[in-house]
């Protein structure tokens, strides 16, 4: 009972020692509180601190919506930028939005992939694209060997410069171009004449031509041309001057490796024919002679096939294939059907945009995620250290 009274007395005595603020200080603090605790100085530092305080003072619930909107805007802008620059994740060399196509690095392209250029992109003469023609040539010859029973032929070592023939002294480049000109129906005939004049002037060949008279939309002409490769640029410039250029596409393909490969195989085949002829002259029996002659026939067929293949490759390098069309009426959308832009195109574009948006989001998360984690860990460490430091003050 006495202990309780002592405790009460002690508590009361301690309470009576309670410090009270000076009236002047209390009045000053009240005034500041009424004014919303204005900051004394207005330096840049204090303004920044004030701004940070304001940002921090916003409840997280209110931050979520604007932050989401900002993130969404950033993704939309990035997607638009990526789309306009024409990078297609599925096909980097083709842009459906009409901008100049971008070519992937040579190392990223499969061997033999050509380089395509839009209307404004000139064809670089030093293109180093690989070639897929070797595979087609190889398969043709393999079939020939299988058919002719020439599997006994010794295998030919690959060209020392590798599958791209990168150490070749000269490059064999196959070029092709597609050009669409727009004209009035009355101008089609004159345009055709100018096309033919241009082909003859460059020493080219008209492989196929088709001219149709009629009203707007019906009248037109189309050509399949072979133009000497050194004069392709001149020819395209002349064609472009004939009428309005609605689209122009050029592509190149490096066929150096298959050309060199076929040349080497042809040389080897000739050497083997010489050797077989020597064996034939020294043959002692009819059976032996018959066997050598069979080998000789097979080898000659192989050499003929290789010569044909080499001629074809050289023609592809020497002559460029040009598809030229003169059309009338409203221009058709490049790369689309004559029915125009439809639901499937819209779905394609939507899917593509969503893919790009997802890619942008993933990249942004990949960059921002670790940064946010590091910032969070630093903040956590700072907070823990500050708390410990404060607690140590009381020890």
């Amino acid at each position, binding site marked *: 009972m006495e202990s309780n009274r*002592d*405790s009460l*007395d*002690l*508590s009361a*005595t*301690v*309470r*009576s*020692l*309670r*410090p*009270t*603020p*000076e009236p002047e*200080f*209390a009045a000053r*603090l*009240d005034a*500041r*509180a009424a004014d*919303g*605790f204005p900051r004394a100085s207005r330096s840049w530092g204090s303004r920044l601190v004030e701004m940070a*305080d304001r940002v*921090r*003072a*916003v*409840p997280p619930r209110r931050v979520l919506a604007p932050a989401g909107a900002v993130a969404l805007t950033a993704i939309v802008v990035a997607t638009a930028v990526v789309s306009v620059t024409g990078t297609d994740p599925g096909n980097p060399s083709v842009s459906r939005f009409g901008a100049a196509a971008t070519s992937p690095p040579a190392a990223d392209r499969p061997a033999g992939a050509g380089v395509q250029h839009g209307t404004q992109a000139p064809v670089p003469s030093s293109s180093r694209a690989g070639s897929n023609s070797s595979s087609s040539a190889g398969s043709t010859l393999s079939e020939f060997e299988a058919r002719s029973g020439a599997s006994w032929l010794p295998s030919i070592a690959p060209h020392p410069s590798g599958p791209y023939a990168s150490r070749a002294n000269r490059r064999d480049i196959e070029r092709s171009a597609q050009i669409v000109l727009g004209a009035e129906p009355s101008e089609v005939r004159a345009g055709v004449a100018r096309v033919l004049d241009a082909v003859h002037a460059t020493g080219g060949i008209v492989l196929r031509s088709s001219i149709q008279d009629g009203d707007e939309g019906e009248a037109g002409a189309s050509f399949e041309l072979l133009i000497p490769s050194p004069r392709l640029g001149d020819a395209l410039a002349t064609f472009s001057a004939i009428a309005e250029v609605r689209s122009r596409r050029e592509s190149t393909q490096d066929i150096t490796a298959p050309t060199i490969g076929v040349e080497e195989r042809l040389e080897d085949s000739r050497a083997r024919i010489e050797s077989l002829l020597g064996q034939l002259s020294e043959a002692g029996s009819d059976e032996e002679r018959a066997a050598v002659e069979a080998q000789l026939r097979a080898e000659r067929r192989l050499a003929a096939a290789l010569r044909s293949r080499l001629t074809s490759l050289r023609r592809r390098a020497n002559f460029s294939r040009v598809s030229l069309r003169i059309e009338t009426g409203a221009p058709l959308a490049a790369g689309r059907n004559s029915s125009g832009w439809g639901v499937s195109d819209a779905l394609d574009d939507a899917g593509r945009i969503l893919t790009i948006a997802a890619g942008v989001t993933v990249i942004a998360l990949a960059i921002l995620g670790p940064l946010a984690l590091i910032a969070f860990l630093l903040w956590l460490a700072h907070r823990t250290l500050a708390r410990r*430091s*404060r*607690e140590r*003050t*009381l*020890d």
Partner: protein
Amino acid sequence: MDTESARSKDVDQALAAVAVDAPREADIAFDSLYRSSRDDVYAYVAGLLRDRTAAEEVTATAFERAYRKRSRFDRGRGEPRAWLFGIARNAALDELRRRKRHAELATDPLDGEGAAVADGFEQSERRLAVAAALDRLQPAERELVALKFFAGLSNAEIGRVIGITESNAGTKLNRVVNKLREACDGIE
């Protein structure tokens, strides 16, 4: 027609003025907290720091920080007084740390020490003894006394402020009071 239009305009203007002038919920709550806690915060900080000038600065700083953070306060995480005293505690400990880094300042006498002359002799002696015993307490112990007897916080609020449980706060307080009593007995 013109009269009706003018009346409608007046009403709209009045409503707009009310909407602009109406203080936000957070401001009202902070104002109430400030009025009810101003002296308590000062008492706690002064009891901990034992320096009136520093206590005034720290009290002002604590209220300013609380004002800036008022929108972030979440009632689900505790009472506003505990939140406010947590801010005041951080500011006071920062001040203590700063003082430790520099020179140790002379401590001001507590209010009761100065008033001792005006009271009865026995009572004044008792106050002096308790004040002397308070001086001998460790800072952490003096903080508990300041939170309990100067600021008037409950054990649960004290636990929230210094980061311990309510029962632990009660135990520690009991220990400090016993120590204080023993010290007073020794002085008397």
